[in-house]
């Protein structure tokens, strides 16, 4: 038997509140204790909304319309606001895409960090030391000065380190990372990835990593979910998906990835066309319009997820089948 998952998302549906437009449809995935799971997709695929819905942080005008999100057996969607608040930042913490806008511009960083402790454990004599310890762990050079500084006094990479320190402060069981390296330079990206990877292993923490870049997650996560037009189209272990992609979209993503080893002798290819809006897909495979394997069935029916080898794929004509 597999262990009881830490987080279990089932049939999640998200849509706008007024003139309802479906944004996320029928999304299900599990995260086991200590496991790192990636969600990959283009912008507009619904990956960020799925992640935000876990902590109830969806923007105004967007809401969850179906499904459940079980965390340690509790459905986060039906919790009372106060119960959810106690989980936020404490058992589940989040880091965001743009560390400049995600930090309060007029509050000292030390105070923003202490606020996490104040909101859950309460401030005591050791609180300052806890913050300092974490800031040094994430590689902030002058910790005391940093605590008295404001966000604009730091570079993007440093800000993201501070965000990470804030998230790790109470040793959460699950860390949700919403494209935290997208806004950073490539070298800084690598440092941040290494930092998060180490911190996760040290704490045996589960992680959900959202990205549009397959290359970023390859060495970071155990399992991957590929999202397209509001649905998960393929999911499986990283090895399986990289070695034997089954959904034509996943294959397309992989072939557009530069490789350092040079084994990929073909030219880099890009997927032609633009991603479909989730609410316009209707009764068809969302990828059909851009898919070279599509047949009439793909335009008239929604493909259900089927288990194939070690992964699940939502495609009528997956790769590797006759």
């Amino acid at each position, binding site marked *: 038997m597999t262990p009881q998952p830490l987080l279990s998302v089932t049939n999640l549906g998200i849509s706008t509140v007024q003139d309802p437009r479906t944004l996320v449809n029928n999304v299900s995935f599990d995260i086991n204790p200590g496991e790192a799971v990636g969600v990959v997709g283009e912008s507009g695929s619904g990956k960020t909304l799925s992640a935000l819905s876990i902590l109830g*942080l969806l923007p105004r005008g967007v809401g969850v319309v179906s499904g459940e999100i079980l965390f340690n057996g509790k459905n986060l969607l039906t919790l009372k606001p106060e119960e959810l*608040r106690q989980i936020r*930042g404490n058992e589940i913490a989040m880091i965001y895409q743009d560390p400049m806008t995600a930090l309060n511009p007029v509050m000292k960083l030390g105070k923003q960090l202490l606020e996490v402790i104040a909101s859950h454990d309460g401030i005591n004599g050791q609180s300052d030391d806890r913050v300092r310890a974490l800031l040094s762990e994430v590689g902030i050079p002058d910790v005391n000065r940093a605590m008295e500084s404001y966000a604009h006094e730091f570079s993007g990479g440093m800000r993201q380190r501070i965000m990470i320190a804030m998230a790790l402060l109470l040793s959460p069981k699950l860390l949700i990372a919403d494209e935290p390296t997208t806004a950073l330079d490539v070298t800084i990206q690598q440092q941040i990835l290494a930092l998060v990877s180490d911190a996760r292993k040290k704490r045996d923490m589960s992680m959900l990593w959202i990205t549009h870049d397959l290359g970023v997650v390859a060495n970071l996560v155990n399992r991957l979910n590929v999202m397209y037009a509001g649905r998960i189209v393929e999911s499986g272990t990283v090895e399986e998906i990289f070695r034997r992609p089954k959904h034509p979209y996943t294959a397309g993503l992989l072939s557009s990835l530069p490789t350092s080893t040079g084994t990929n002798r073909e030219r880099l290819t890009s997927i032609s066309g633009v991603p479909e809006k989730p609410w316009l897909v209707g009764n068809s495979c969302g990828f059909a319009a851009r898919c070279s394997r599509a047949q009439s069935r793909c335009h008239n029916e929604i493909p259900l997820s089927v288990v194939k080898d070690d992964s699940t794929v939502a495609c009528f004509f997956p790769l590797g089948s006759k």
Partner: protein
Amino acid sequence: MNFRKVLKFPGVSRTLSVLTTLFGISVFVFLVLRVIPGDSITGAFGIETGALTPQQIAELRVYYGIDKSLFMQYISWMQSFLSGKFGFAYSTGVSVSTLTKSSLPVTIELAIIGTVLGVILGIAIGMFSAKKPGSTRDFAGQLFGLLALAIPGFVLSTGIVTIMANKFHYFPNGYEYMTPWENPWMNFQQMMFPGLVLGIAVAAPVMRTTRSALLETVDKDFVRTAHGKGVPNNKVQFRHILRNSLIPIVTMTGIQFGYLLGGAVIVEKIFALPGMGRQILDAIMKREYATVQSSIMIFAIMFVLINVATDIVYRKIDPRILK
């Protein structure tokens, strides 16, 4: 050390710019009032001026110093202003500084009461409105803002005076004005209504600014971060959302304080308060150059000082502004 380097010292260029503005104001005030038809002699003696011989008029002109060139008149006014006397009222011979000593505190008290009431009222109603944009409560809040903006202070004051005096036989301003030191309770009663009228005028724009600033801030990423950290909602509202909305609110309050000094002219007249506004109004009616000039000048200085103060508060609440 050259001039450009001196300018770089903190506060030097700021002080210079304030001084230039004040100089401009003094020239402007001086010139505007020179255009007044008829002069202070006709103002002081009224119809009796006709009985004066040309000889007497000329002597009076020398006596009041208005026979000199415009430039010399400006210089002598400035000398008197800077020496702290502010010139003399022609008709009574009392120095403007004596008049101002008793009238300025009245106006300042009024302005402070008005601003405090206005800011509290404006922020409260703005928050009330922004809580649920588009709802009935938002509509009510916005309607208040609109009416507070549109009902002139003199209408509101006249209405209050009429109702209080006739329905409740309560009109503290019918008694002689009392300073807070002479009779604090009486002073409070006399200041209450005029302060409220000014407060409502200040509340309208503060409310509108608060509402739009809050609505803009609510959707900011750092608010999401705060919720994501598990910060209790009321703390998110005050520490993060309101705190970040304060910058435009402070600016608006600073601007309003200036307008409030203008509003004081009307309110002081209706509520019979012996403040700066009434001093200016009386002086204008009596064509007392020196009094009008110096009093308006004092108003302008207060206004400029408030701008400087707003700037300082600004730097305190927004660390992103370079020191």
